[in-house]
């Protein structure tokens, strides 16, 4: 318990350091643009592929579990849409990003720590936590909602392709289903969750990397911890946010 409280205290002190005034805005801007590419654009591929197949499998699963003739076929499209918007594109995609982006951030910053690159920044009088982490947080907070929207579109497309090609639903029924009883607030809910999850992934992973001590073995451990802690926090906050936003 004491260890947990001490880590939590360290985490909040770390955040205070991250959000202190940046040294030079132009350098931070460049760094943020760089992070857009390395954390955002490079995630488009994996998010697209996983979203497509998840959409496909959600459609097929829904179809095989609603074979009773009293259920209208368009419910398959509706089920696919709501599953993707409410849970998959925000939560499951965040868990996938925790694995990809989180481990990458922790190992990058951890390696900088053990090779004294962070000390070199501090010696120059640069707030290393802010310089290294703030651009990552800004980039993911701004770009992850874009990934979520992309994931929603590709997931629904995957559902449509799988549904129509396998013959479990007609194109008309699927399209009718994804338009039926659409609640726009679900998109807002999904995006709010995405922003929270993006912050968790980036800040927790950066914290793990920044506080590495030792050698390459510790960097690997910090990377694992970053993914595990981010994933647990994402699932925990998923429950809290769902209760707060949908109740």
């Amino acid at each position, binding site marked *: 318990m004491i260890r947990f409280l001490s880590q939590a205290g360290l985490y909040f002190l770390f955040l205070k350091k991250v959000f202190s005034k940046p040294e030079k805005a132009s*350098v931070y801007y460049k760094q943020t643009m760089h992070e857009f590419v390395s954390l955002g654009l490079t995630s488009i591929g994996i998010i697209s592929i996983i979203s497509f197949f998840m959409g496909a499998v959600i459609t097929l699963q829904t179809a095989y579990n609603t074979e009773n003739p009293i259920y209208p076929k368009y419910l398959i499209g509706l089920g696919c849409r709501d599953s993707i918007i409410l849970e998959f594109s925000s939560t499951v995609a965040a868990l996938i990003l925790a694995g990809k982006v989180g481990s990458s951030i922790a190992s990058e910053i951890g390696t900088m720590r053990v*090779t004294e*690159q962070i000390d*070199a920044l501090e*010696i*120059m*009088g640069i*707030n290393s936590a802010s310089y290294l982490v703030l651009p990552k947080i800004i980039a993911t907070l701004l770009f992850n909602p874009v990934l979520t929207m992309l994931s929603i579109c590709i997931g629904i497309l995957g559902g449509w392709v799988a549904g129509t090609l396998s013959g479990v639903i007609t194109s008309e029924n699927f399209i009718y289903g994804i338009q039926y009883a659409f609640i726009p607030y679900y998109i807002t809910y999904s995006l709010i969750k995405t922003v929270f999850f993006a912050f968790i992934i980036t800040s927790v992973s950066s914290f793990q990397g920044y506080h590495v001590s030792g050698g390459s073995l510790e960097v690997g451990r910090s990377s694992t911890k970053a993914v595990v802690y981010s994933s647990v926090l994402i699932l925990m906050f998923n429950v809290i946010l769902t209760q707060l936003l949908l109740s």
Partner: protein
Amino acid sequence: MISIKNLNKSFLDKTVLTDITVDFKPGITNLIIGQSGSGKTVLLKSIVGLHNIDSGEIWYEDTLFNKLNFAEKKRIRSEIGMLFQGSALFDSLTVEQNVRFPLDMFTENSYKEKTDRVNFCLNRVNIINANSLFPDELSGGMKKRVAIARAIALNPKYLFCDEPNSGLDPLTAILIDDLIHELTKEYSMTTIINTHDMNSVIEIGEKILFISDGRKCWEGNKNEVLNSDCKPLNDFVFANSLAKKIKEAAN
């Protein structure tokens, strides 16, 4: 000039440095020597503020450095260059970008002025036609020289080097020593070097501080080091048979 007064530093229950008092003058190469684990690196990192000390005073000229807050330390740190044991070049940046980095962060110079300064610093350390290479494409000696170029980019008043020769062959080690020595004279910097390389001690040790078990054990220069009657120092300096033979020959 950097003055250290009664510096004490411990990690949890382990005392690492005890009552260190020493002055480091500008324009000469000041060496901190001692066995591995004697507290050299902790002392160097305490002087530059990477470690908070338990008690004592660290003076940069007439400024009490260890009592300053982060923002106030920034002014002093803008005058510090440091060469780390592993060079600590930024992996994701090229040689040119590494040397340009402090200029981007702390000057408002034009792109051309910065490029000229980068090229000047790289030429000064004899790094030619390597601007676009990444650190992992460089040899150990080249990395050290690029790190020196980055350290001097802002014309620092203070230069700190943590074991600049570690992992280098003897010839390259001498080149690095000579380079640091020349730059110290050229810019009248206060240079402090952590080392356990005896060649550095003999060649460039204009002021030597010997630390043993976290305590200041001996202070002098390269001429005095060979004739000292300090036993821990003699055990350290004449640890290998070659050094013993040199001493016997000298006697």
